[in-house]
């Protein structure tokens, strides 16, 4: 089963949930840290990287000798990454999404695609967890190709947990696509609810089964609970606002190891997530 852990708001506890869920699973599982702008699951699962691979994306290169300046490449590029401005078009690699449309459309075959490095993939092994994460290079703004490269490492048939980036934009879409269930982590605050509502709209647009986990429950109010009831969204778990959890987190420890009394809660959560998928399948 592929479970994606997402949230609208940042800092709600996606990674905390992902690493503890993975550890509580207690069987071989892949953890795909798709927050490639700041991967952090490895901080809780200390292990040396086993393998590091450079990831590239294709960007156009124009052969000025072949170009007749027809401008078709600029016309087809919806990202404004290539623009005709004289004899040969100018390319802006940082705007390019690597679709290859310009090279495809060019009647003179003056454009070829060349690889541009965007980041690395690193893999770790911690107990029964195979951790794969992407690390976007500094100065690169195009996360989705690297996120897809991380997800390409998923072994067919193996259970996997995807730690998605925060927000509701392209990187999140790239991370949750293909998941069989999505867990939205939020906190019981006005900000938490506001961004949760955006994330709910996103997962509904993808017709993915999903439920909500409230983190730091008791620290705010009950507006998230009321929202979930009104929207008929399963409230899968509430992680209490327990200072000891924050202390364990600050040490880089796992809740299920530092505070074993929470272990049962994570196992129960896992069962409920699997139930989400079954409900949809039924």
């Amino acid at each position, binding site marked *: 089963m592929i479970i994606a852990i997402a949230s609208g708001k940042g800092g709600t506890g996606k990674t905390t949930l992902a690493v503890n869920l993975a550890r509580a699973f207690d069987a071989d599982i892949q953890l795909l840290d798709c927050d490639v702008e700041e991967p952090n699951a490895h901080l809780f699962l200390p292990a040396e990287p086993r393998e590091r691979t450079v990831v590239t994306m294709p960007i156009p290169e124009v052969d000025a000798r072949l170009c007749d300046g027809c401008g078709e490449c600029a*016309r087809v590029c919806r990202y404004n*990454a290539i*623009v005709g401005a004289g004899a040969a078009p100018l390319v802006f690699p940082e705007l390019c999404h690597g679709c290859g449309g310009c090279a495809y459309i060019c009647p003179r075959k003056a454009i070829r695609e060349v690889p541009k490095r965007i980041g690395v993939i690193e893999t770790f092994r911690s107990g029964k967890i195979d951790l794969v994460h992407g690390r976007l290079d500094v100065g690169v703004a195009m996360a989705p190709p690297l996120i897809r490269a991380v997800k390409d490492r998923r072994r067919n048939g193996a259970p996997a947990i995807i730690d998605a980036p925060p927000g509701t934009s392209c990187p999140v879409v790239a991370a949750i696509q293909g998941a069989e269930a999505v867990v939205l982590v939020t906190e019981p605050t006005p900000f938490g609810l506001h961004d949760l509502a955006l994330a709910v709209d996103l997962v509904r647009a993808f017709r993915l089964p999903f439920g909500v986990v409230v983190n730091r429950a008791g620290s705010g109010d009950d507006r998230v609970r009321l929202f979930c009831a009104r929207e008929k969204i399963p409230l899968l778990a509430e992680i209490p606002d327990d200072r000891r959890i924050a202390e364990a987190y600050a040490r880089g420890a796992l809740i299920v190891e530092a505070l074993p009394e929470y272990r049962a809660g994570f196992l129960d959560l896992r069962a409920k997530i699997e139930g989400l998928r079954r409900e949809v399948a039924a």
Partner: protein
Amino acid sequence: MSAPKEGKKDKMKIVFSTSGDNLDAPLDGRFGRAPKFLVYDLETDACEVVDNLQNLQAAQGAGVQAASTVARLGAAAVVTGHCGPKAFRVLSSAGIKVYTCAAPTVGAALALYREGKLLEAQAADVEGHWA
């Protein structure tokens, strides 16, 4: 969108970034995301206003496309508030001069231009929004 080089350059045409449609309108400090461009013909004193709405709402590359629009209009110079690196690269590769100034209105900027009080920008004066 066709290649800007199709626009034949007219030495007397200059473009101002603006939110209005006459010389009393404010000079817009932004280039790529200015709502409109006022094209002024120094020879005939004729004005033409070109909409930039498409770039105003672009997710990215507004400066690149705005520069492309200006090149297609056949202008020889742009007067705006600020110009970023990507727009500057497109404009300079098309041989279009860039002048940045803080004049309050298009008319005031035009007066400064005519008096030769505007300095030609040699590089972008603000950071790009992506990378």
